[in-house]
């Protein structure tokens, strides 16, 4: 892109990596806050009505109420997160149930999952990228219950991919034999979304 107008003296609110620059993927910058990007109204499902399901190419669909979900073994994890809009945060702390735990005992030949959320948002991933300790259903961020604007009561967390894959307000995973592009993947965003290969848009 040719250089257009430059605003004299403008820097923006980015932070310098301070010696952690090898942890910042290409094209990203660090931020202090936790930006909120919404594609729709913030869902407000009461916990008494909340459930999480695993369905689709599976012999017996599974479902947990909020109490049942919170009774499952939960882990604390610290990860870097990267948004396709170019901001990154290092060492974010979460607590959640590993997707491996939710898929325990599930026999399937499906190769793909579609995560679906309140409000209609969806995102697609290969099954092998949400298993093996790569993904969680997170209910706690930075020691506090996950705030609604950040996806609470629970969101998918898949830190090795751009954050749009970490579906906020997640309500379940649908196992599929064929890949099905989700909300942003069907509208220009890369089907895979690896920040280290800068897979932001179609064709990247």
């Amino acid at each position, binding site marked *: *892109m040719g250089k*257009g*107008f*430059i*605003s*004299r*003296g*403008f820097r923006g609110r980015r932070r310098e990596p301070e010696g952690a620059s090898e942890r910042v993927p290409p094209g990203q*910058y660090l931020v202090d*806050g936790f930006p909120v990007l919404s594609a729709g109204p913030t869902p407000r499902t009461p916990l008494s009505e909340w459930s999480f399901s695993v369905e689709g190419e599976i012999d017996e669909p599974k479902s947990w109420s909020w109490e049942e979900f919170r009774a499952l073994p939960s882990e604390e994890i610290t990860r870097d997160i990267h948004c396709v809009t170019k901001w990154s945060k290092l060492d974010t702390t979460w607590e959640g149930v590993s997707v491996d735990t939710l898929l325990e005992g599930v026999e399937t030949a499906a190769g793909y999952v579609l995560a679906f959320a309140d409000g209609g948002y969806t995102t697609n991933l290969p099954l092998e990228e949400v298993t093996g300790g790569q993904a969680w259903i997170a209910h706690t961020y930075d020691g506090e219950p996950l705030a609604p604007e950040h996806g609470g009561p629970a969101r998918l967390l898949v830190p090795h991919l751009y954050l749009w894959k970490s579906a906020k307000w997640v309500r379940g995973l649908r196992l599929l034999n064929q890949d099905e592009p989700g909300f942003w993947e069907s509208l220009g965003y890369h089907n895979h979304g690896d920040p280290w290969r800068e897979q932001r848009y179609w064709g990247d």
Partner: protein
Amino acid sequence: MAGTVRRLTWQVGEIVETSPQTPRTKSLFLEVPEWRGHRAGQHVDVRLTAEDGYQAERSYSIASAPENGRVELVVERLDDGEVSPYLADELRDGDGLELRGPIGGWFAWDAEEGGPLLLVAGGSGIAPLMAMVRHRKATGSDTPVRLLYSSRSYEEIIFRQELETLAADDETLEVIHTLTRSQPESWRGYDRRIDEKMLRKVAHAPEEHPLAFVCGPTPLVETVATALVHLGHDPARIKTERFGPTGG
């Protein structure tokens, strides 16, 4: 088709004057070389670009009347803002500011549309409504206007003096203030956030079919719009401009 056929492109306007309004706000006056003119109520998108190409965009309502050749923007300095501190503190006369517009014919008023007009503003939400008040004055219109304006304190009323002067000379323009955080000793006006009870007193009767424009922080806009409908006003005659988290 009504309106102009054009593609919205970025232009560079020149800051010709900056003027503090209140402790937290400042007016920027711009000359925009190929400005096509605007309607009262419209806004511009402003874009800042750093040396390395990083960009930030925000929308700002135009406070100047269409009859005024210069474009006036009102900037409220947000403490943790990314764009507003730059606009309010860094920009000097002669600097360029990239913008595009005018945008948003839906939230706009021309004097020939008549009224009566009910304008409700919160803080820097006064900007597009001030364009309407100034436009009305410039055209010599006598459309009755009631402006209900919520500010944190007397010192933070933007355009206070100008509104006082305009209202003093014109009995068809009524300005009602409410000061929500602190009031001067002698204050006998409203001293709370706008609510339905206040609107019942201040707004025109629904039978007068006012055209309402509400602008400011989202909570204020939603409270006012809901209250007006509750009071019997036609939703189709209520237009809102929520500023959202990044001001405007």
